[in-house]
């Protein structure tokens, strides 16, 4: 088979699996698990084959135009370069792991068939985005991901949190998608084509007349999809979905799509200095703010969600300094360790019966209950904190190194201001990242108090996947930074000494400071008892998680916050803690800025409809009603009146006829 055929099969197989799963879900439940797992695994093999054949050489391009569609042609196009090939491998690896993990995690869930089909569809859409060489086809996958995320985040729709979160995810990403679509149209109008290769050719030859507005419009869509400030608020709330879905969204698919999209069209963004600076500012605000917020979260999954936002900030930062190699490198390593973090987090939540770090910090021996999760999560947290030699170190140093490169003026692709912004924010975030990673680890695994409940061993499908993902988290970076430049643009990704020392140094400082403050605060833990656990600790993992999410707010008063004085984050952040826990009140700002005006407008419209429009309608009805009442009065029911009137009319008509006929 040609590489093109293989590449077409990669997104097609999960799609067919999803269709078959949806069709057979009720009638043949025995086929659901194979139909969910096997297409994804075959896609993994095919994606690996495609990557091997592509081998970092010239991009594979194939296109066919099914039918003329109007002014700008829409083509079914493939564009597989090194980025696409490797990202597809990452997507299929993570999706395969998630599918296998889900068979154990949602073992007893009655809605598993539709869930698995949607995950397959999600994977397929992401693969379409990755391989597509045409922006319209890319948009199709982009939007399918949006709707799939809506369904998957709302998987536990019995809980109000999940319903609100799914709606929020959908609306916020759609808010970005509208300018995104407009930007795509503007871009296609300027370039005369939706094909990525032609657009990049037009950019290279200076054929794009308005790069700045187009780039900014596209940036809005990317911010929505990749959860960048200020459209990131849906991502923490999306934690109301099942953990495997979070892993899928955060590691490989949805949020990666935005970064990947900019990476594809980076020359277009480079054409606009303003867009690059905006991107840099966006990245800086995102990473620093989200790292602060992550330090204050009580829900283990929300910590990870904010960390995702921060790591995505690194990627957009790398793009802001015009190095997509570093960005995609970080995308790959982050995909591996973030998927691992979430899947391990799911195991921990199941074992502990709660998603609250405050409650976990009051359990001893939790790490003995879930040794696999403990060890793999340790690896992943070290990768997240960018401690050498874990993979996160190399990718993050690549980003910081590029930023330093820009600052020192070795490149003309990006403005130096962007470099400074990214470098400083990156270093600050490295400190904070190490701090919250340490806090998470200490609170989850070093708790004191009553012994954690023992539910026996976790299913093999869940633990085995953790070790599979631990391998790239541990070793990907070390091997890849030498190989990857061949696949990418050729920029060197080797860590530079200055940034390595700086980055690792601040990370160590963050970790040590957190540890010290934890030693200081942990004494309080025994004094204030906290800890609500799920009502059915023996139930399936999905059920335990749904109950834990639903129980957090009634138990602690807030979905993200617990009044726990033994939390080292509270000591570190000081007065900032409360604001950070609420995500710096951005939701409240949105409520004040958008929700309330919209509500007020709605009530105004309702008032106008009720009082003004209705009045006209009623007025229009009154006259016919009066006429009707008058006519009704004639309807006496007395036959003699009817006949009298009838005959009187007849006489009148007869007289009239006679008069007319006689010409009188």
């Amino acid at each position, binding site marked *: 088979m040609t590489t093109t055929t293989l590449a077409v099969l990669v997104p097609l197989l999960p799609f067919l699996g999803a269709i078959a799963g949806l069709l057979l879900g009720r009638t043949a439940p025995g086929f659901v698990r194979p139909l969910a797992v096997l297409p994804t695994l075959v896609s993994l093999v095919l994606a690996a084959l495609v990557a091997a054949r592509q081998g970092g050489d010239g991009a594979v391009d194939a296109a066919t135009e099914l039918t003329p569609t109007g002014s700008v042609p829409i083509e079914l196009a493939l564009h597989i370069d090194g980025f696409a090939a490797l990202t597809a491998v990452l997507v299929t690896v993570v999706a395969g792991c998630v599918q296998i993990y889900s068979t154990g995690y949602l073992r007893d869930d009655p809605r598993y068939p539709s869930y698995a089909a949607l995950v397959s569809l999600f994977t397929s859409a992401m693969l379409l985005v990755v391989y597509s060489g045409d922006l319209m086809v890319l948009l199709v996958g982009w939007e399918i991901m949006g709707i799939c995320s809506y369904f998957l985040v709302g998987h536990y729709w019995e809980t109000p949190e999940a319903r609100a979160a799914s709606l929020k995810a959908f609306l916020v990403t759609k808010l970005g998608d509208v300018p995104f679509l407009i930007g795509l149209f503007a871009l296609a109008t300027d370039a005369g084509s939706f094909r990525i290769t032609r657009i990049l050719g037009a950019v290279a030859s200076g054929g794009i007349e308005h790069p700045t507005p187009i780039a900014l419009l596209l940036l809005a869509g990317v911010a929505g999809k990749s959860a960048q400030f200020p459209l990131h608020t849906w991502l923490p709330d999306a934690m109301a979905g099942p953990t495997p879905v979070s892993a899928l969204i955060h590691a490989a698919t949805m949020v990666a799509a935005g970064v990947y999209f900019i990476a594809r069209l980076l020359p277009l963004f480079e054409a606009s200095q303003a867009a690059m600076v905006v991107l840099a500012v966006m990245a800086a605000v995102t990473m620093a703010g989200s790292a602060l917020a992550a330090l204050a979260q009580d829900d283990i999954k929300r910590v990870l969600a904010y960390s995702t936002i921060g790591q995505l900030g690194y990627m957009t930062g790398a793009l802001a300094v015009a190095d997509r190699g570093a960005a995609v490198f970080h995308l790959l390593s982050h995909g591996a360790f973030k998927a691992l973090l979430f899947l391990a987090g799911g195991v921990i939540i199941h074992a502990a019966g709660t998603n609250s770090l405050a409650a976990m910090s009051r359990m001893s021996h939790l790490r003995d209950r879930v040794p696999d999760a403990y060890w793999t999560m340790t690896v992943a947290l070290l990768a997240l904190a960018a401690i050498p030699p874990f993979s996160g170190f190399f990718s993050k140093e690549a980003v910081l190194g590029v930023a330093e490169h820009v600052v020192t003026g070795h490149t003309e692709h990006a403005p130096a201001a962007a470099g400074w912004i990214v470098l400083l924010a990156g270093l600050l975030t490295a400190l904070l990242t190490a701090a919250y990673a340490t806090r998470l680890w200490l609170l989850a695994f070093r708790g004191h108090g009553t012994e954690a409940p023992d539910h026996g061993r976790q299913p093999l499908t869940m633990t085995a996947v953790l070790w599979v993902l631990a391998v790239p988290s541990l070793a990907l970076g070390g091997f890849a930074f030498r190989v990857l430049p061949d696949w990418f643009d050729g920029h060197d990704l080797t860590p530079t000494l200055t940034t390595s020392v700086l980055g690792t140094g601040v990370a160590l400082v963050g970790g040590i400071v957190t540890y010290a403050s934890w030693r200081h605060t942990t004494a309080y833990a025994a004094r204030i008892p906290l800890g609500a656990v799920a009502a059915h600790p023996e139930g399936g993992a999905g059920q335990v998680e749904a109950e834990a999410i639903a129980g957090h707010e009634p138990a602690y008063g807030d979905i993200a916050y617990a009044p726990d004085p033994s939390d080292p984050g509270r000591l570190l952040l000081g007065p900032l803690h409360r604001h950070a826990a609420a995500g710096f009140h951005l939701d409240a700002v949105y409520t004040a800025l958008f929700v309330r005006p919209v509500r007020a407008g709605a009530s105004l419209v309702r008032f106008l409809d009720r009082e003004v429009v209705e009045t006209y309608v009623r007025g229009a009805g009154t006259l016919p009603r009066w006429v009707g009442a008058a006519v009704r009065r004639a309807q006496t*029911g*007395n036959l003699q009146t009817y006949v009298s009137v009838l005959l009187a009319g007849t006489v009148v008509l007869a007289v009239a006829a006679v008069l007319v006929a006689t010409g009188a």
Partner: protein
Amino acid sequence: MHLAYPAVLSALLFCTGLYGVLARRNAILVLMSVELMLNAVNLNLVAFDVWLSRTAEETLHSGQALTLFTIAIAAAEIGIGLAIVLAVYRNRGTSDIDKLRDTAEGRESDGPDAGVSDSDASATKAAAEKAEATA
């Protein structure tokens, strides 16, 4: 004889019947008035038949044949009409046609015979009276 005499008499009789149909309250009196109107028409038919059979050599005598038919149909009509009036009288306890106002618009509670309970009551009363009368 002048044709005007029977024609005018016919017109007058017809309008008398018309008045009776419109003004009489009792349904049987209305039927009588209908008979008057039919007879007025019959007179017209006969008069014109006699006139035309002489002047226009009309040999079918359609006027007289139609008069006979009208008489027969009037007999049938009076039988059916009386049966209906009797049925109404048994059900409603009255044969006054200006009290049969079930088709009136928006006046369900006006007449004594329009309301459901009223009509039921009067019907049972009429039934009792009828049974008494025929026994």
